[in-house]
């Protein structure tokens, strides 16, 4: 009796507007997994990371249009992996190796292209190295894809500081416009059929391009009018002193950031680099904050960073931090040897800490059960 009530109390609630997870939490979680992936080339650990990200996406993604982007990112990751292997085969790599798999005809290059090799010996070591490396990139991409699929981009942009609000709206409008543009393109392409022209092929696509752009332009003008009439761009009167301070802070801050970054990267400026960079960041943030005063805008039901957001982002940060620590203490397990070739083993503790990344699949609010939402057809 007691256990069941505790269990229902702990079970993640159904996601709604009021308990929606802050989109920033998903990004922190995904970037944490990505950071972890960047610290290892162990294919077993990388595979585990992909599995963790995939499981969380499967358990917690909604039916919104952006949630479908995950598949695209997985495909992109596989493509990157494939490309890495192809390059390794044809261009070779600096990895010495003794296990020759096959030999491609060597292309003699002129002298000025010395150092570039096309064709030649392909060793198992080369391929394995490329595979590990490609897998790492693919895992990073898949982690970013997971964040894309789980976090609502519009809500994320709503969390921007007030001074950046107008830029944020521009991005949101662009995000909603892109699918409309594609729908227009499909509709017009289909309409070619009505004129007795083939509705497939590249030529058809090109011929409808201009009408589609015309339509998009007209729609954006109409939208701009509607936004203006709804008060977009209303500004509050700001005293000139504040306005000037804002400009000085923002510009000075950005300059400071540039100078500080240069100092950090260049060998001779290591001493002043960090303080200047920090000063610049503080000044720029102050400028943004003051700039926000010009905007009269308020926020409707902003996403709150609650306990569940802490759990989700914390699990990502924990995976990243532990992996960085393991990479420092036990590099051999995380970077399996290529020369000589050894079979990678699954290091127990790092694997266990990767599993921490599964926490969101239980902590984040569950999406509403798939409801049949009939798409409105034109009619």
């Amino acid at each position, binding site marked *: 009796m007691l256990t069941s009530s505790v269990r229902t109390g702990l079970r993640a609630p159904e996601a709604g507007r009021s308990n929606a997870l802050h989109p920033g939490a998903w990004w922190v979680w995904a970037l944490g997994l990505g950071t972890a992936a960047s610290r290892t080339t162990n294919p077993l650990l990388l595979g585990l990371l992909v599995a963790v990200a995939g499981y969380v996406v499967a358990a917690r993604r909604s039916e919104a249009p952006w949630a479908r982007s995950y598949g695209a990112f997985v495909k992109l990751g596989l493509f990157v992996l494939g490309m890495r292997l192809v390059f390794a085969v044809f261009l070779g790599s600096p990895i010495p190796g003794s296990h020759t798999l096959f030999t491609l005809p060597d292309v003699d290059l002129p002298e000025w292209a010395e150092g570039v090799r096309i064709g030649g010996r392909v060793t198992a070591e080369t391929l394995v190295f490329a595979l590990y490396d490609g897998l790492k990139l693919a895992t990073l991409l898949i982690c970013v894809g997971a964040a894309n699929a789980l976090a609502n981009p519009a809500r994320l942009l709503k969390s921007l500081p007030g001074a950046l609000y107008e830029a944020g709206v521009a991005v949101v409008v662009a995000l909603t416009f892109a699918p*409309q543009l594609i729908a227009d393109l499909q509709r017009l392409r289909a309409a070619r059929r009505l004129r007795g022209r083939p*509705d497939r092929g590249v030529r058809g696509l090109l011929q409808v391009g201009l009408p589609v752009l015309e339509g998009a332009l007209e729609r954006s003008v109409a939208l701009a009018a509607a936004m203006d009439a*709804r008060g977009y761009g*209303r500004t509050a009167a700001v005293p000139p002193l504040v306005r000037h301070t804002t400009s000085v802070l923002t510009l000075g801050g950005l300059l400071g950031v540039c100078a500080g970054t240069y100092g950090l990267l260049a060998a001779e400026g290591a001493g002043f680099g960090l303080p200047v960079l920090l000063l610049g960041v503080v000044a720029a943030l102050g400028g943004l904050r003051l700039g926000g005063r010009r905007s009269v805008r308020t*926020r*409707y*039901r902003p996403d709150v960073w609650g306990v569940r957001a802490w759990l989700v982002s914390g699990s990502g940060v924990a995976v990243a931090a532990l992996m960085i620590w393991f990479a420092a203490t036990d590099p051999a397990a995380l970077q399996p040897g290529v020369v000589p070739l050894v079979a990678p083993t699954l290091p127990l503790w790092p694997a266990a800490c990767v599993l921490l990344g599964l926490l969101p699949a239980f902590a984040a609010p569950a999406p509403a059960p798939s409801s049949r939402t009939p798409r409105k*057809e034109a009619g």
Partner: protein
Amino acid sequence: MIRFEDVSVTYDGAVEPTVAGVDLTVPEGELVLLVGPSGVGKSTLLGTVSGLVPHFTGGTLHGRVTVDGRDTRTHKPRELADVVGTVGQDPLSHFVTDTVEDELAYGMESLGLAPDVMRRRVEETLDLLGLADLRDRPIATLSGGQQQRVAIGSVLTPHPRVLVLDEPTSALDPAAAEEVLAVLQRLVHDLGTTVLMAEHRLERVVQYADQVLLLPAPGAAPVLGTPADIMALSPVHPPVVGLGRLAGWEPLPLTVRDARRRSGALRGQLSDSAPPLWAAGPPGAERVGTTPVAGHASQRASRWPTWLSKRRPAPSPTEQTPAETENLAVRRAHVQALHKVDLKLTPGETLALMGRNGAGKSTLLNTLVGMLEPSAGSVRVGGATPHRTAPQDLIRHVGLVPQEPRDLLYADTVAAECAAADQDAGAAPGACRALVGELLPGIADDTHPRDLSEGQRLTLALAVVLTAKPPLLLLDEPTRGLDYAAKARLVAHLRGLAEAGHAIVLATHDVELAAELAHRVVILADGEVVADGPTADVVVSSPSFAPQVTKILAPQKWLTVTQVEAALAETEGAK
């Protein structure tokens, strides 16, 4: 509330002002309806109230417009946003965010209202407009009526004192239109909002108006008056007014209810003459009663004359059934868009396809032109299977004028469009241009299709489609944005085509158009045929699909003012 002082607007490059001599006051809490033929500057006049004209569109505004004491010359649209709410013709180009709730809050966020005020007003507005169940839905998945309500709600939340609406019900089915109008009436009655609205479909809105502002011609001074007074002299008027004028009723009734009360004498006069049962019906067709069609395919088929039967050996192309579907089902993205649809058309027959937004009308038309593939059942158009026929062959069997006729037009002059149409259809050069000359006299060769009015563009698309001489013609929502004059011209064209033996299918929300044109009405609901029969039989029994004349003269089965007029003339002649 709104004061126009000798206002005229001249757009850049135009010789004559678009609207001129507007000098009037709209008092607080009134619903004022703006009427007039297309192109008289209704949208321009609406734009001057929100400040979009001239701040956004350019042009020169003479005179002065003040809204709640604010002069639009010195106040930009964004500074009027808290007093004026504007909803344009296309709700989709109005939305800034992606979900219903955010959209309702957007205007308030821009105005900087406190979060608790915003929350309260969003909840109130959700209830007021009946949107509570849709609050988390992405706007793109809503139906047309729902989108229109969200658009109205999104400008209501900042509590504007004036609401400006451009054709709010044109794209909606009758039920959704009534929903929107009920909301507007509630705003006017309960909240004292001033509403200024332009609308072509007067039969839907005129009874809600407190005053009517008539713009008789471009640049002519507008006339403001009570609805009855203005309707007596307006060139555009709904059928109820047409019937009232015909019968000489004084004062002119504006609602079906008023007209019914006075129609006793007229009904008596008409009782001797029977309404035409199937006016100008297709040759050789017999009357079919209102039967639910699903599952009765075999019985129905036997009712048709044998020369239409499929088993007839080697039918010649002209005599083939223009369209036939059997047990047709179509799925679109997990939604059963059509289910067990059996339809058969005869040459010369005009069929009106009706039903609420999203009932499957467009899907059926798209299936008939092969843009969608049936998931079950069969569809045949003039003996061909549309989705397996090459486009250049198919246009000889069937032509579709889509909802947005612009989708069909690619060229930048009328002449180029016609030349391309001749080539597509393999017709003699000049065939399409001759059709355009016939349907749309006085259009110059070098006009850009975009510069044509809505009605002219529709007619050009119709001419392009007709160039291939398809025996079956489909029109998707052809009267959207058309004024009564343009609609009358369209009706005349289509009648001529039907008499020439074309079978015509209209998917429409416009019950008056269906009454004027259709021999037969099919009502779809959730992808199924729920009624199929002669127009008079189907529409008389339906409260939302009955035209006004039918409602007034029920139980007699009259459909249009023209029918009544002809019958009256006949009885006069007999005397």
